[in-house]
């Protein structure tokens, strides 16, 4: 592998500042890595000319000793973030060649800090999926393979392109979004770090909406330190998003002190689900040992409504999606399929523009919001959501953080679960309550499965306490010392 594409963000930043390397060299190495890993289908748009231009501008700043916290760092952007004058599709046919005339707040923050755009990353259509198989642009391939088996595996989803590209060294870091696990689950499947911040930490303005009360942007990186640096850039208070919270953005990297002595870590007993594979259970116990060895206290906690988080999610998320996706009508942007009247034009455009999973979720959402069912489904789910949040509030009166596995299994094969929506939904069983309660969560690579695939552990934090979350994740990362590499990465 190229020395340049194997650098972490923090190492690359140091080398750029020391003028050991230039931003253009770094961008060129990654453009080459993108070409080498084209078979992963992680990128759906290559912006290499723009990357070189941005890298040159970074070099000019760095030469003067100036530049932001991401100056000259080549990143990939999930194709859910609107990028000015750069095609944005949410991996859906219905957006066609939509080219925003504006920039999402998250990406605007990153460009202001000097990041370099390599391209737009594949994802599940409108972020609806757990395997990145629902994209109009085709499935993303996980750079990891099972031992002695070259079957193509999914990278997880919905931020599968982001996770695959970061793992394969086709970018240093990537933006992603998480509605029910879409940052943390793909991070676990690809041996990367995935951070979902507190709801309201990063602005949702200019990010294609899926379920507005759950959606949150965050980074996928190859180290906890890199996640801290990315979050510091991505997060901001934004008057253009009325759910953005006006809390100062800390210097997250400074939180990585390596000291978690006396920290109280909760182990939620309800995450001990029936039929959990022994290796996931063993990994979880290993995580507990690492934290104990670092001086943290372990406490059993109870989140009694855990088993209802996923069913409540599958009412709330489709309901909000059906409302958000009403805007795709073939009038203002994207695909238009003619009909005899305007209603037929709507129905034809939406039938041809949306894929199967998106249609399924819009229909479920429309049903649960329709007259006569609103109280029985939507309101009931929102009441259950209150109970889920209260469970966390009670637990956080006793502990600072919680530790759980990220996923119930390692990555599975492309095509293995796509025909069965419910089995697919179960992928998010450990991640979804975090979204329902609006909390921050992080997945770090913590071990290898019996068949050679990465497994992740998840830490869940208190609202707006990403600092404690990152500090603890950093300690666990050092203990785990995860050094395995995927088979299909750039050389």
């Amino acid at each position, binding site marked *: 592998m190229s020395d340049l594409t194997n650098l972490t963000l923090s190492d690359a930043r140091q080398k750029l500042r020391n003028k050991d390397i230039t931003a253009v060299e770094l961008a060129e190495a990654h453009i080459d890595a993108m070409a080498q890993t084209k078979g992963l289908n992680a990128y759906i748009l290559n912006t290499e000319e723009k990357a070189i231009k941005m890298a040159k501008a970074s070099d000019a700043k760095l030469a003067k000793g100036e530049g932001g916290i991401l100056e000259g760092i080549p990143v990939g952007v999930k194709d859910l973030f609107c990028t000015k004058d750069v095609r944005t599709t949410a991996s859906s046919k219905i957006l066609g060649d939509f080219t925003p005339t504006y920039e999402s707040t998250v990406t605007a923050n990153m460009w202001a800090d000097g990041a370099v755009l390599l391209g737009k990353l594949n994802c599940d259509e409108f972020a609806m999926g757990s395997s990145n198989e629902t994209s109009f642009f085709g499935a993303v391939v996980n750079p990891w393979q099972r031992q002695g088996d070259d079957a193509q595996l999914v990278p997880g989803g919905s931020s599968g392109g982001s996770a695959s590209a970061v793992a394969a060294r086709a970018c240093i870091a990537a933006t992603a979004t998480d509605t029910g696990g879409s940052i943390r689950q793909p991070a676990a499947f690809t041996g990367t770090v995935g951070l979902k911040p507190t709801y309201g930490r990063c602005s949702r303005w200019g990010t294609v909406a899926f379920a507005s009360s759950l959606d949150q942007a965050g980074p996928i990186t190859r180290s906890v330190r890199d996640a801290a640096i990315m979050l510091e850039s991505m997060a901001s208070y934004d008057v253009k998003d009325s759910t953005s919270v006006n809390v100062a953005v800390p210097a997250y990297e400074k939180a990585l002190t390596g000291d978690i002595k006396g920290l109280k870590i909760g182990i939620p007993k309800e995450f001990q689900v029936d039929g959990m594979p022994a290796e996931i259970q063993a990994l979880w116990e290993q995580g507990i040992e690492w934290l104990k060895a670092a001086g943290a206290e372990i406490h059993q906690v109870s989140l009694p409504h855990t088993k209802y988080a996923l069913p409540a999610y599958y009412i709330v998320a489709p309901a909000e999606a059906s409302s958000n996706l009403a805007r795709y009508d073939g009038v203002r942007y994207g695909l238009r399929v003619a009909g005899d009247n305007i209603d*037929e034009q709507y129905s034809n455009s939406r039938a041809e523009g949306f894929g199967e999973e998106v249609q*399924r979720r819009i229909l479920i959402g429309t049903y649960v919001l*329709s007259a006569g069912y609103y109280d029985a489904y939507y309101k009931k789910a929102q009441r259950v959501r*209150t109970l889920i949040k209260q469970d966390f509030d009670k637990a956080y009166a006793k502990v600072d953080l919680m530790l759980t596995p990220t996923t119930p299994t390692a990555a599975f094969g492309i095509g293995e679960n796509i025909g069965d929506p419910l089995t697919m939904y179960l992928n998010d069983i450990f991640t979804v309550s975090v979204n329902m309660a609006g909390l921050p969560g992080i997945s770090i690579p913590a071990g290898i499965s019996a068949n050679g695939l990465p497994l992740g552990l998840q830490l869940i934090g208190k609202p707006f306490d990403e600092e404690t979350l990152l500090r603890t994740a950093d300690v666990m990362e050092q203990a785990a010392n995860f050094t395995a590499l995927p088979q299909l990465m750039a050389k």
Partner: protein
Amino acid sequence: MAIDQATVRKVANLARIRVSDEQVANLEGELNQILEFVEQLSEVNTDGVAPLTSAVEMTQPLRADVVNDGGYADQIVKNAPASDDGFFLVPKVIE
């Protein structure tokens, strides 16, 4: 609360998604499977529990009631499949 094919058609019409007969048959099964799964929420006693309105405790921000955006119709219609002079073009809606 199982749904039948007539309900699938009704919901598809509300959502403005054209569905074929074959799709209706498949969707009937798939949607019922999902509804059966979410049915377990009925086990939860939610008497006196208020529905969650915001995942994070905050007061809704207010802004001054003034026009502070706009004046770029050309950008708004830039991605439209059909537009004319700053307006979206649609099939005739008034008979």
